């Protein structure tokens, strides 16, 4: 094996500067997904007529659309149509003024919604019926019961898969290099332009990813302990 540690170090320094970018395009979509995926899951769990069947179908379609197709199609449509639309609406903004990061966030959010929403759905379904009824029986409305009783319990259940989803998003976010957003992986490769030390670049990126993922797992475990405090010292 012909590995130059110096190149790893160089790539590491390059890539480390882009940790914030990767975290940004991971965590913002994650938050958006939690909100949107959560709402979709709620609509499906409460079996809102018509809407929930439409969502069932849309989710299974969306699951099948490869992220790169979505990315390329979105960015193409954006590049070719946005200016016309903006002119039509008399907006001063043009495609070139829009930071590709926003496009990246949009695409990563939409493509991650199915798995997030599925995790949420499973978690919501795992809260026993009796918990809803207990809420109603003390006079709380559906909404109050949901936010005060069901959600906190579902959140505990969803945490392991949320950790999984976050890690998936983190690693999957390097895709947005296809629209000019530079993240950890692609900045790690930059020094290799000069040297072709791609192996070293990949190793550097892997180290950073591993550290970040370990951190995410740690946070996940911490949240599990925190939100699961009602399970601690369970005697029954």
């Amino acid at each position, binding site marked *: 094996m012909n590995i130059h540690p110096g190149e790893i170090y160089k790539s590491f320094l390059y890539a480390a500067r882009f940790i914030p970018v990767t975290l940004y395009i991971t965590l913002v979509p994650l938050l958006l997904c939690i909100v949107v995926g959560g709402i979709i899951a709620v609509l499906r769990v409460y079996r809102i007529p018509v809407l929930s069947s439409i969502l069932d179908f849309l989710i299974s379609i969306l699951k099948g659309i490869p992220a790169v197709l979505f990315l390329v199609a979105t960015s193409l449509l954006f590049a070719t149509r946005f200016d016309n639309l903006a002119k039509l609406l008399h907006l001063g903004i043009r495609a070139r003024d829009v930071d590709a990061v926003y496009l990246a966030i949009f695409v990563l959010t939409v493509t991650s919604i199915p798995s997030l929403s599925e995790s949420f759905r499973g978690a919501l379904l795992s809260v*026993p019926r*009796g*918990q809803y*009824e*207990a*809420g*109603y*029986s*003390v*006079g*709380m*409305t559906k909404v*109050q019961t949901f936010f*005060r*009783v069901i959600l*906190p*319990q579902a959140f*505990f259940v969803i945490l392991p898969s949320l950790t999984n989803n976050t890690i998936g998003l983190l690693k999957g976010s390097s895709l947005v290099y296809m629209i000019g957003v530079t993240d950890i992986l692609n900045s790690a490769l930059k020094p290799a332009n000069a040297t072709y030390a791609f192996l070293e670049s990949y190793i550097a990126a892997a180290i950073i990813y591993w550290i970040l993922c370990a951190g995410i797992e740690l946070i996940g475990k911490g949240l599990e302990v925190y939100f699961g*405090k*009602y*399970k*601690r*010292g*369970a*005697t*029954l």
Partner: protein
Amino acid sequence: MIELRNIQKTFGRNQVLRGVNFRVEHGDVVVVLGPSGSGKTTLLRCINFLEKAEEGFLRINNQEINFKTASRKQILDIRKQTAFVFQNYNLFQNKTALENVTEGLIIARKIPKKEAEERAREALKKVGLTDREAYYPQQLSGGQQQRVGIARAIVLNPEVILFDEPTSALDPELVGETLKLIRKIAAEGITMIVVTHEIAFASDVANKVVFMDGGMVVEEGRPQEIFTNPKEERTRQFLRRILPENDYSI
């Protein structure tokens, strides 16, 4: 005063309640008896609107509600006058004993937190759990959980408390304690409808026993009458099976 008139409830094609009528005076304790599947739980759930009956009227004091046309607001109103104690407790798993009791007060009744906690502590004291207020349900024994469930109900100061087999998930030794507690609350003049198979409790505490079968009230009356001299054959048959002087011969 609570009055049920012609309550009907169907699940799919299965009519579970076929027009139930009865009346409970203020401060009375009614025990509902009946074989499994006769609709006792469903009846209680309908009164608390956990299930929506298709037909019938419910009158609590001077407020009458038609199940067919009940509005959201009316439902919430009725729920404020009724409280439910579940067979399997159904405590909020993510809340401590104290929070379980304050939740309805603070969120549904909009009572300031401080006052709510005061009242909750009082209720917990009544059920003998003062020292357990910071415990989560999973850290409590079945009997303790059920007592928190009872505290959660009485703290709301409802017109009527509905108990669905409050002791059937408890260890035999704890059954007595819990029934004692219910008796104590009854003594305070709170109206109660209790589904239970504890005949001794019923004879002792109830003002009225309602025997249901097949979604209808078959017979009702004072406990002594029903237990010692049931009029209906179906009641007699049921009591024979359930009374402790059971005969195990084949």
